[in-house]
């Protein structure tokens, strides 16, 4: 057993604890309080127990939004992770070409979400947008403001354009960290390109890919700005994801009770996902450090 000789560390984490208390724990407590009451006015509150949770859990619109959200996050992960790895493998490893590719690749990451939404909104327009007009000229009946499938695909492609570079950069950094000796050994054994990828590169990338997976999952699960700017959640409800649905409830309709209950459910989903990814990361650690 390790004995603690010095408790100074507790003092040093105190500022963080205070910050978290003010920015997260106290607001969370307030949300829990709101979720069990009907707030009619600043001084008028009625305790309703689990009524809001019941309402939210049985809300078909919420189920639909959750379904769309899960499908979106799954699609984002299924496309961005392999695409990011492919990009990283295709990038030049050294020299000015490498630096140039990295800078070009990182550009979408520097653009704020609402600007990305605006860029794609114009890009996809049938009359003046480069992509929209080109598709229309080619005879494709593309209209992201009127057709739900088009809207959905546009949001997905926009997210892929915006965030695949992150995975590519992470994977690139992971690839550069693999010692040359592994490749030499593979060459001596006459390993094929695929075998090198399958048995050397992929296992070595496990740690960074898990971090990428976690980041992309969390981000895509909380996506709000881009679809809000691009489609406003429409047409109909086709691109209304969880965050936007929550905002509609809390800000649009000012239903604070159901919105609070919904926030807590959202929080629990994220908490579970975080725990799963955290355990995976913890388990990935020893494999990385395994003796060569």
């Amino acid at each position, binding site marked *: *057993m390790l004995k603690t000789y010095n408790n100074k560390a507790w003092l040093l984490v105190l500022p963080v604890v205070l910050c978290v208390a003010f920015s997260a724990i*106290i607001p969370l*407590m*307030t949300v*829990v*309080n*709101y979720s*069990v*009451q009907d*707030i009619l006015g600043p001084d008028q*509150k009625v*305790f309703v*127990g*689990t009524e809001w*949770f*019941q309402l939210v*859990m*049985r809300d078909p619109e919420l189920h639909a939004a959750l379904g769309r959200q899960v499908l979106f996050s799954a699609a984002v992960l299924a496309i961005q992770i392999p695409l990011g790895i492919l990009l990283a493998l295709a990038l030049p490893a050294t020299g000015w070409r490498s630096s140039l590719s990295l800078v070009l690749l990182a550009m979408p990451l520097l653009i704020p979400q609402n600007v990305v939404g605006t860029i794609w909104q114009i890009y996809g327009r049938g009359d003046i947008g480069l992509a929209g007009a080109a598709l229309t000229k080619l005879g494709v009946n593309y209209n992201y403001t009127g057709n739900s499938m088009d809207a959905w695909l546009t949001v997905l492609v926009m997210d892929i354009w915006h965030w695949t570079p992150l995975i590519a950069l992470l994977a690139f950094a992971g690839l550069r960290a693999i010692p040359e000796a592994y490749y030499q050994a593979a060459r001596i054994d006459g390993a094929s390109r695929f075998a090198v990828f399958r048995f050397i590169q992929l296992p070595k990338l496990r740690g960074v890919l898990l971090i990428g997976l976690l980041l992309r999952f969390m981000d895509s699960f909380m996506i709000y700005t881009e679809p809000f700017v691009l489609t406003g959640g429409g047409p109909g409800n086709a691109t209304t994801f969880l965050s936007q649905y929550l905002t509609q409830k809390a800000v649009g309709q000012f239903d604070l009770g159901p919105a609070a209950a919904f926030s807590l*459910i959202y929080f*629990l989903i994220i*908490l*579970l996902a975080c*725990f799963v990814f955290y*355990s995976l990361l913890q*388990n990935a650690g020893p494999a990385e450090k395994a003796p060569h």
Partner: protein
Amino acid sequence: MESLAWMAWTTPVAIFFSSVALMLVGMTLWQIKSPSIARRGFLPLTTTRGDRLFLGLLSAAYINLAWTGLTDLHQWFAAGIAFVWLLVVMRWG
């Protein structure tokens, strides 16, 4: 207290958060008195005492939510099941 009025406190929520705080203090004291050793139970991962408490509480929340969404029976049944589940996870998880 006037300064806490904006938080719209209710008794059940106050009891809930007090229990969480007490649990944290209790777990800390227990940890100091006899440090937890990570082990493997029926859960598919190695856990310490704190991990099991977290998992137990998280699944308790899900049990309660599922109960609210799927049945019209009283919530106390779900609370009872969740409590038993928490004990099972703490002991054999």
